[in-house]
């Protein structure tokens, strides 16, 4: 199952992903529409020692937010692996139990009057999630975790080789 993977070192904090996410979740699917309606992005770029770090939902295997959900709205789709509180028969009441449960802080209250928690839904209607498609630095990738791990190993090996003065 493909997941959104993060190459933190490639991120320069341009926030294009956050804007693209907001646009994808806006009624008219545009950045302007998102800004006008105050639609927030569902992933976060946090500043750590002056360096940007993307933080987003991992769509966990056994999600704490699903266990915490007292209405049954938060569910993990067994086929796609997507964890979301939208599009189900049961609906969110904004009790914030999921927010308390998520170790990544990836679930937040929706802005405005409506009481509802919002989180990454991995753009179910798109082949590639909006944030990944928008990232100009290839800091986000939508790939199989195994491929990500393999590539990571390769790049670490390359880095080590470079450090050791050995051409990779």
């Amino acid at each position: 199952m493909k997941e959104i993977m993060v190459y933190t070192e490639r991120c320069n904090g341009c926030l294009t992903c956050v804007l693209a996410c907001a646009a994808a979740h806006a009624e008219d699917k545009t950045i302007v529409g998102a800004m006008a309606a105050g639609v927030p992005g569902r992933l976060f770029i946090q500043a750590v020692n002056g360096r940007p770090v993307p933080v987003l939902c991992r769509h966990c295997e056994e999600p704490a937010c699903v266990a915490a959900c007292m209405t049954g709205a938060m569910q993990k789709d067994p086929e796609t692996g997507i964890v979301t509180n939208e599009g189900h028969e049961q609906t969110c009441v904004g009790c914030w139990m999921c927010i308390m449960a998520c170790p990544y802080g990836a679930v937040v209250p929706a802005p405005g009057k409506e009481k509802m928690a919002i989180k990454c839904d991995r753009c179910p209607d798109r082949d590639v999630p909006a944030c990944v498609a928008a990232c100009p630095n290839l800091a986000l990738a939508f790939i199989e975790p195994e491929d990500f791990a393999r590539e990571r190993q390769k790049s670490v090996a390359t880095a080590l080789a470079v450090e050791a003065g050995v051409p990779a």
Partner: protein
Amino acid sequence: MTAYVIVGNSAAGISAAETIRRLDPEGDITIVDVEKTPAYSRCLLPNYLGGTRSEDALRIRPRDFYQKLRLNTCFGYRVARVDVGEKVARLDNGARLKYDRLFISTGSSTFMPPVPGITGEGVYGLRTLEDAKKILAQAGQARRAVIIGGGFVGLEAAWALYRRGLEVTVVEKMPQILPQQFDACAAAILLREMQAEGIRFILGTGIKEIAAPGLWEKLTGKAGRGVILENGDRLKAELVIVATGTRANTGLVEGTGVKVNLGIVVDKYQSTGMEGVYAGGDVAETEDVVSGRIGLTPIWPNAVAQGRVAGYNMAGIPREYGGMIGMQNAVEFRDVPAIAVGLAQADGDGYEILKEYRPEHNLYKKIVLKDDIIVGLILVGDIRQAGVYSALMRKKAKVTRLKHRLLRPDFGYGQVLSA
């Protein structure tokens, strides 16, 4: 084929059933419950009372859930007794359910303090849909309501009835609301918001008696009914809700050898030690990760997590309960969200307290540390990173290098990742 019997059709029971079905496609699973309705969320009863959630929207699973998972349902029957020797659950109508594995997730019931008049008319707990329906029926002909107990359930009930247009008074024995979870500072913020809305609070006094019309007239010389406080004050009320606490429903294993303290004692595998008998949810006592104490942790997420662990072990796949943190809870009144986790009120020797208090913004953050490990947390006004703090607490992570950043408004998982 293994026969599984689950007593209790709620958070823990449903979670166990789902887990067992996933791991044992052939197993014969039966769920028993005295309540006749498909599984619903008790946590939403205040929303139902307040008129913001319909009865149908209380269900926590789709309509075809039991059929799809091939779960036999035995609703409307009480398990009167478990015979651990014969491995039989006896129902109140005399029927016997044979089990190989039994999961007891019978939850808890409203505790009615032993004061005169408490069993009278117009006095209710708030634990079941039936309770909520009775309250609604009474609310229709009531003008004033008294809520006994200023804990989570009491305040939620107060808020709901207030929304229905009743005059609401909350009576709390302790000098602050939410005495179990919050410290005085956090409680004061929430109190002020609810008072501003028009809900009345009487703190620091308990109730002496609930007076039915006859007695009320004798005492006051006027028509009516209501509550008499310990300090002698009288509160006229046509509707009284008792929310002073709950008791675990352990009656079905009394005298069977299953160990019971405040709840059913279980090990890390949710096993009671009796062959094939497991327990979880509000009815069970487990170990609190932070305090190390064994006790009840009667909240929804813990019930779900324990049901899942029990399900694994019942299906023959050993799995340990990772442990949860007690007293984790969220409330929101008048748009001020609040959360308390762990030893939020810990004080004195060996504890370090980080605090930020901005009353003008209804903002209060408090982190309790012991040896640089987070052991307690209160967030009022801004709860966004509650899960990140809780995870650090659960993992007992040393936060020495993060400490100066913990209270900053931009604190988040990114900082943890890079620490």
